[in-house]
């Protein structure tokens, strides 16, 4: 009877682990984040797209990468379709799947579907706006401008419940303001600029040094044009500008957006949590409390302590990818402007992982503990060989979730150049951290209408 029970138990454990391993192994197995970024940097988009096949078709992280690569290839319709699918998927994933949550508890976090970090969700609209700007599609572009504000407003309203930036994204508010101004919607533009200004005061103090270089001028100019003298005076005072209304300028504006480098990526690392002598039976009685207690032992020095078992858990770590370029200058008609970094995307990615880390460590610990207890049970009920097998399968299953939107730039900078109406050329000089020239290119044929805005984009990889 006991032998039959032991045999059945062994079959259960092996079948369970193997089945779970099979199901959990599909989300990005074999994908190399560093290799992917290197391919994108070299402009090998087809190879990079091919490597994304390692993910299921509806995986949000790969859909976002796909959308950005297709955009880089000029396949704007396909890029929009990938963005659409990703956005619908993100909305659907609000509802958590209990089966996947359960599966992740015995396998790893890759069994959960990737839901996109809050900052990634909001920045979809920024990147997507280029698909419409490039076609001069005003309505499509303004849809994205509205989406930026809708998502930031939602984050602001749900803060601090969600892990978002509370809607305080100066760059996105400013960018949507520029888009509305370009689309001849001055009232909407003004509201966006005001929200960009408010985002600068998020901690209660005004930080003018973080403001886009022309934000104050745009606020004062639009307030003046719409006849709101008090507001024009208010913003002029804050930004040190003349509040008197200026005659409508013939000058056009070229807005150069510089996207630099690659966002930091998530990679797998192993952490060891010690289980001390005599703790095993206590852990069996109250696994939930012990998961929390053991999670707090991350980084603990266990020299001189009697250790029963070293619990290995896999966690994602943030690997920053410092961009090779340090600065960029944009020059048109003897006006030379240094790109001002407004969106530090890599910093946002790191913050998103830091905020999620508490939950990740707890889940990984609970999982490790369940596998440890299964090993102990197998040792006792079936035999040492079965325990070793369960342990090996458990270790093989333990993988951290390293998914994220990997093709994003490290940071986004903006250079705004006022120019006479007509056709212009812009010289772009990108420099390394030591001032050495990395790129020196000239874009010709930039047509600027009187009083109008023109958006151009340059990416350094």
């Amino acid at each position, binding site marked *: 009877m006991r032998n039959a029970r032991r045999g059945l138990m062994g079959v*259960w454990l092996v079948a369970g682990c193997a089945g779970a391993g099979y199901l959990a192994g599909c989300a990005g197995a074999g994908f190399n984040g560093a290799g992917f970024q290197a391919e994108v940097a070299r402009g090998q988009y087809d190879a990079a797209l091919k490597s994304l096949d390692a993910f299921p078709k509806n995986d949000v992280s790969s859909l976002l990468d796909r959308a950005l690569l297709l955009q880089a290839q000029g396949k704007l319709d396909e890029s*929009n379709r990938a963005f659409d699918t990703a956005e619908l998927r993100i909305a659907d994933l609000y*509802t958590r*799947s209990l*089966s996947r949550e359960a599966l992740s508890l*015995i396998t790893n976090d890759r069994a959960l579907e990737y839901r996109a970090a809050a900052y990634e969700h909001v920045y979809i609209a920024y990147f997507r706006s280029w698909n419409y700007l490039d076609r001069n599609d005003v*309505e499509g572009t303004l849809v994205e401008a*509205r989406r930026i504000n809708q998502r930031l407003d939602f984050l602001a309203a749900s803060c601090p419940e969600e892990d978002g930036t509370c809607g305080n994204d100066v760059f996105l508010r400013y960018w949507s303001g520029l888009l509305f101004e370009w689309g001849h919607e001055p009232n909407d533009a003004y509201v966006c600029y005001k929200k960009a200004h408010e985002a600068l005061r998020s901690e209660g103090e005004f930080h003018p040094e973080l403001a886009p270089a022309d934000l104050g001028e745009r606020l004062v100019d639009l307030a003046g044009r719409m006849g709101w003298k008090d507001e024009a005076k208010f913003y002029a005072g804050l930004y040190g500008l003349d509040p008197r209304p200026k005659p409508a300028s013939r000058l056009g504006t070229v807005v150069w957006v510089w996207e630099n480098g690659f966002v930091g990526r998530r990679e797998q690392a192993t952490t060891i949590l010690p289980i001390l002598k005599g703790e095993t039976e206590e852990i069996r009685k109250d696994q939930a409390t012990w998961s929390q207690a053991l999670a707090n032992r991350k980084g603990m020095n266990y020299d001189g302590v009697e250790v029963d078992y070293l619990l290995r858990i896999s966690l994602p770590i943030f690997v920053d990818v410092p961009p090779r370029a340090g600065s960029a200058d944009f020059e048109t008609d003897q006006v030379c402007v240094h790109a001002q970094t407004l969106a530090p995307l890599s910093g946002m990615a790191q913050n998103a992982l830091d905020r999620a880390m508490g939950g990740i460590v707890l889940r990984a610990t609970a999982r490790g503990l369940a596998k440890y207890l299964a090993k102990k*049970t197998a040792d006792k009920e079936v035999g040492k060989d079965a325990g070793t097998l369960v342990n090996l399968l458990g270790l093989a299953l333990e993988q951290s979730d390293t998914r994220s939107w990997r093709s994003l730039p490290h940071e986004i900078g903006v250079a705004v150049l006022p120019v006479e109406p007509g056709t212009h050329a812009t010289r772009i000089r990108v420099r390394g951290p030591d001032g050495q020239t990395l790129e020196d290119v000239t874009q010709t044929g930039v047509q600027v209408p009187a009083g109008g805005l023109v958006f151009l984009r340059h990416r350094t990889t």
Partner: protein
Amino acid sequence: MNEGALRLLVVSAIAMATVSCSGKSVERIDPDTTVDLSGYWNDTDSRFVSDAMISDVLSATWYTDYAKSHPDKPTVIVGTIRNQTTEHIPVGTFVGDLERAFVNSQKVRVVATAEEREEVRDERMDQGTYASDETIKQFGREHGADYMLIGNVSSIIDEKKGDEVRYYQIDMTLVDIQTNEKSWIGQHEIKKLVGRSAYKS
């Protein structure tokens, strides 16, 4: 976690995950069937609003006034419908639905939109070179529209914890092309509640 719980967890997770990975299925359905998947603007909204709007516009006083003073039906053109929502609404489909509702009412004549007219004029030009004298179509004999229907679609989205209220407001104006007079102004609203539960099996 005891042995029984572990066993149950393994089996249920594998079973549920396997079920959720089942393959694609395709089913043909009646195009008039209302199917709401995401809560976004869809074909049903487009059809519903266009039918309601055209019914409204054709029962307004401008129509009876026109009929009293003119022997023929009025000629209308559907102009620009602006999308002011947070969605990429296919405005062309909506314009098509409005034209269909106008034509099917048999109360008005509908002429081609500006873009379509260009194509037709190119064809007429082409006929001037290649068509026989008997079948060639003349320039300057187009039917000019009496009224233009213009409008916009705007939206307000309110969301909290997975629940979303999507409100669409469609405003339309019929403008007398001769006088610029606004002969009719109509409005239609759609409100949808999109609920998302926190968990599913």
